[in-house]
């Protein structure tokens, strides 16, 4: 069974895609995609990026190849070998609704092994602290959802995420994913 996992962030949606498969990783750059479909998109779509990763594979296998799909006007496909070492990077500190945060991501090969908040400054506002406390774990969980076997998704009150997603992408970009 193959599973593709794509994450998009933006105003309602938007910036980037995250695709993953059991045996193959595909990168879908929605940055270029939206450039194709909506050439005049606003500045919020400046983060191209994207990436990802293999879902854990029972039985284990050799590091998967990475298929990179860049859907520009004429889509091109390149195949590269995936790096296999465990690595991590911290994304750029990014403004979000209530302050500034940065996201740390750890990967093994092309598989995301952990996503966490490296730093957060919400200005000490108790309400935003409460919201951070509630929503950040859910975001981390969402980013990790490809790795949960017993359920395929999580339903909960909606959250705001632009800063989290941008910093996550920046961290992934640093890892060349």
């Amino acid at each position, binding site marked *: 069974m193959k599973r593709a*996992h794509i*994450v998009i962030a*933006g105003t309602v949606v938007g910036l980037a895609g995250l695709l993953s498969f059991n045996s193959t990783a595909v990168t879908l750059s929605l940055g270029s995609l939206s450039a194709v479909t909506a050439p005049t998109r606003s500045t919020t779509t400046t983060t191209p990026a994207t990436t990802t990763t293999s879902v854990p594979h029972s039985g284990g296998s050799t590091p998967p190849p990475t298929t990179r799909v860049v859907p520009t006007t004429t889509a091109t496909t390149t195949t590269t070998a995936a790096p296999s070492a465990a690595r991590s990077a911290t994304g750029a500190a990014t403004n979000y609704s209530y302050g500034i945060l940065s996201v740390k991501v750890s990967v093994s090969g092309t598989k995301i092994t952990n996503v966490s908040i490296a730093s957060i400054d919400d200005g000490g506002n108790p309400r935003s602290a409460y919201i951070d406390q509630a929503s950040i774990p859910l975001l981390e969980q969402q980013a990790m959802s490809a790795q949960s076997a017993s359920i395929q998704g999580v339903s909960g009150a909606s959250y705001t995420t632009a800063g989290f997603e941008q910093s996550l992408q920046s961290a992934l970009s640093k890892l060349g994913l």
Partner: protein
Amino acid sequence: MGTIVTFDLYDEDEPSESVLSLLREAIDVLHQADDDFSTYKYDSPLSRLRRGDVTMEQCPADVGQVLELCNVAKNITDGWFDPWSLPGGVDPTGYVKGWAAQRSLDVLRRSWIRGALVNAAGDTASFGGPHAGVPFRIGIVDPAATQHLACVVESPGAVATSGTYERGCHLIDPHTGRPASRAASATVTGTDLGLADAFATALAVAGVQALPLIEVLDDFEALIIDYDGTFHTTTGFPAVRTGSKTSS
């Protein structure tokens, strides 16, 4: 408002170019909905309609259709979901997110893949399943401990949850115009994510008193979790297990 939408595609093989092409089309649906309905974009048709710069007839057909469907949801929920009662003018956002995710899923339906799951910031629309004959299972976040699940449901196609535990009390009681949330969390399952989303919003505002409004619907079921942790469900709510806190 920034929001994450994820797409999970399940099939025997990795997606073909034609599947990826449909995926791009599905994503375009979301972009288009954002362009048409964003209240954060000054020039979106909805923003212009709210300001009175344009009439409904001058807006894209989708705007009229969405507002019509919002009116259906308003009637079904006895006015507990009412985009016309919100401060700042008509705001169908509570319906549009689910509606757009459902539409984008419907694009993927043309791909004949085994299953697809679209998760729009906590509201999910799906067809098929992870394996042949197996439905998608969706965890419902416990509003009192958001790193835990309150229960797990088998998705009949749409699962929407509304509550104030993520963004503070942003829900407005249409009957008073004041912030109100009589349930810690309300989840609605059904066949259409736009309506499920609107119904979940209505239940989160109204609380358990509005549960009978969903009980009478054939295609929708609901779960309300009170602030004290009590569960209330319609008779057919598709919970796999409830009551105990399950680590997510």
